[in-house]
């Protein structure tokens, strides 16, 4: 024998040592020995993590769509109103407001509407004056179309010439309610016949234009005593300048009372509407966490039983030279692998659910990769916590367990 007396009296014996690769193999071996049990006990974890990934994935995928739509519409549109006075009456803006805004550096377009309070529009002169249909009439600035980014559904927008005459451009809803389908028809507006020039497509960012009948400023001055004070100004600027323009707008329009001027960003409102679902998302993530917790308890339970069943295996390993630490590591790793396997399956399932939901809704699949990585990592941590107590118990098993029958 090459090493018959491995340890001479007094000399410290060589250490017990378990290679990391062997430890890993031991962990996998433990799972493979009882595959059905491994699957069942990691199912809870899988379901928990699948729920969380699906919730996050569906939420981010739908938000990705909103973001995409917003970037199409542009987030550089600001809306300016004069605010309201003490009596709740809308305060009109100054006559030269639009021109003043155009002079602010970075501003690309500015257009306005001026509500004409007592002017209404009807299909024809026979309709009772009280049946306004919720439609309003406003004098529109020629640049309104560019500023709001609204498209024409049919016909043409106002120009220098047509703005002088009794012509009108209808919002989409207004046209529907008035029963107008094509340009050239006549409507009864403020006691005169106005010829319909065109119909606007509906706009996500400026939905208020939908129910409006827009006429030129010159004709409004002429027929309805329009003073040139706009009610709402729409302004578009360079993306990088939006913040700066926003702070400049109130003092530019009302140097003596800047706080009265109200500036809003329609894209913010749209984005906010889509984050209302966050509470619901939070609830689902909570449910997922509970499933994860229950799954972790399932893994702990499986491991405790496993330790009791494998007392002899533990005793044998101890007799082969395993230290307590080796036994502890083996069972801890087994729990981690068990949970991580569930986590991997659950992450794949969650991804699949998100993909199906995204496809059904026409969204692009958008799960941040770090969420997938975190999914598996979280389950590994759950496994480590779940395996801690069983592993400590395994390490405490008496080395004589293999001998006692």
């Amino acid at each position: 024998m090459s090493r018959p007396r491995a340890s001479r009296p007094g000399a410290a014996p060589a250490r017990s040592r378990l290679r990391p690769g062997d430890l890993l193999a031991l962990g996998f071996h433990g799972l493979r020995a009882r595959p059905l049990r491994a699957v069942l006990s990691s199912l809870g974890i899988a379901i928990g993590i699948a729920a969380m990934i699906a919730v996050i994935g569906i939420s981010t995928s739908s938000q990705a769509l909103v973001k995409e739509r917003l970037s199409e519409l542009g987030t550089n549109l600001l809306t300016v109103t004069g605010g309201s006075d003490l009596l709740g009456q809308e305060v009109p803006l100054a006559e030269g407001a639009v021109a003043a805004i155009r002079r602010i550096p970075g501003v690309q377009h500015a257009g306005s509407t001026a509500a004409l309070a007592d002017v209404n529009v009807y299909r024809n002169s026979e309709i009772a004056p009280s049946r306004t249909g919720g439609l309003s009439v406003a004098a529109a600035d020629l640049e309104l179309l560019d500023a709001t980014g609204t498209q024409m559904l049919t016909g043409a927008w106002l120009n220098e010439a047509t703005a002088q005459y009794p012509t009108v451009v209808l919002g989409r809803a207004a046209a529907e309610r008035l029963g107008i389908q094509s340009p050239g028809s006549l409507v009864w507006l403020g006691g005169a016949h106005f010829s319909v020039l065109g119909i606007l497509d509906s706009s996500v960012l400026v939905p208020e234009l939908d129910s409006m009948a827009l006429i030129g400023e010159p004709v409004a001055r002429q027929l309805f005593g329009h003073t040139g004070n706009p009610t709402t100004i729409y302004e578009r600027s360079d993306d990088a300048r939006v913040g700066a323009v926003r702070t400049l707008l109130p003092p530019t329009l009302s140097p003596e009372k800047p706080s009265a001027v109200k500036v809003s960003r329609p894209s913010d409102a749209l984005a906010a509407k889509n984050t209302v679902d966050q509470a619901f998302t939070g609830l689902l993530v909570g449910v997922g966490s509970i499933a994860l917790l229950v799954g972790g308890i399932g893994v702990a339970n499986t491991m405790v039983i496993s330790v009791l069943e494998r007392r002899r295996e533990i005793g044998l390993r101890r007799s082969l030279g395993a230290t307590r630490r080796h036994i502890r590591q083996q069972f801890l790793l087994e729990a981690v692998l068990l949970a991580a396997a569930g986590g991997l399956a659950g992450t794949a399932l969650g991804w699949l659910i998100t993909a199906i939901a995204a496809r059904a809704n026409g969204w692009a699949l958008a799960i941040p990769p770090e969420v997938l990585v975190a999914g598996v990592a979280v389950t590994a941590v759950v496994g480590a916590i779940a395996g801690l107590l069983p592993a400590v118990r395994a390490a405490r098993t008496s080395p004589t367990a293999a001998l006692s029958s």
Partner: protein
Amino acid sequence: MSEDAAAEHVVELRAVTRAYGSPPTVALNGVDLRIAAGEMLAIVGPSGSGKSTLLNIIGSLDRASAGDTRIAGHEVNRMSDAELSALRAHAIGFVFQQFHLSDGVTALDNVATGLLYTGMPARERRRKAEVALRRVGLGDRLRHHPRQLSGGERQRVAIARAVVGEPSLLLADEPTGSLDTKAGAGVVEILAELNRSGTTVVVITHDQELAERMPRQVRLRDGEIVADERGVAA
């Protein structure tokens, strides 16, 4: 054999007592036992006489409640769990009555497990395992699973696992207890062969005939050594 050459003794027990629980039941009571390097001996005695308890203490799996235990020159009472584990990994081999083989693993890998906690690379473990299996006459059963082997063959695999690390001390608790006479004789022959090549072998047995073929027999009763005979068989 010189009685006072302590260095020559693989095992040296002095007034070892092992008591369980409280009130204590005494499994071993003041046992003195010295086993010289290269000896082969049988521990015999009725059921409950303390044979397994004694073997556990000799194998450092258990600690005595009182008395001194020296194994391979080490004072066991002063050693940590990690040190005792190292001693078992490198210097002691165990054979059990129920074999304790892993079912889903080949004979070769079962034997290689005997070197798992020495930190030896897997390839080298397998190579040594093959040598050990050939030594116990199972060179043609390397890829067999335990289920495909007879009881005697399984115990030979277990012996190969116990000796693959070339321990100086081999301990067997009823190694033939689950085997028929013929298979048991085969196992004993392998143990004797290992002893001839230098390993110290301690065998617990119920089988009187088997015990009498060993050079030395230690007889236990009620936790005490009642006889320590050196036969002429050797």
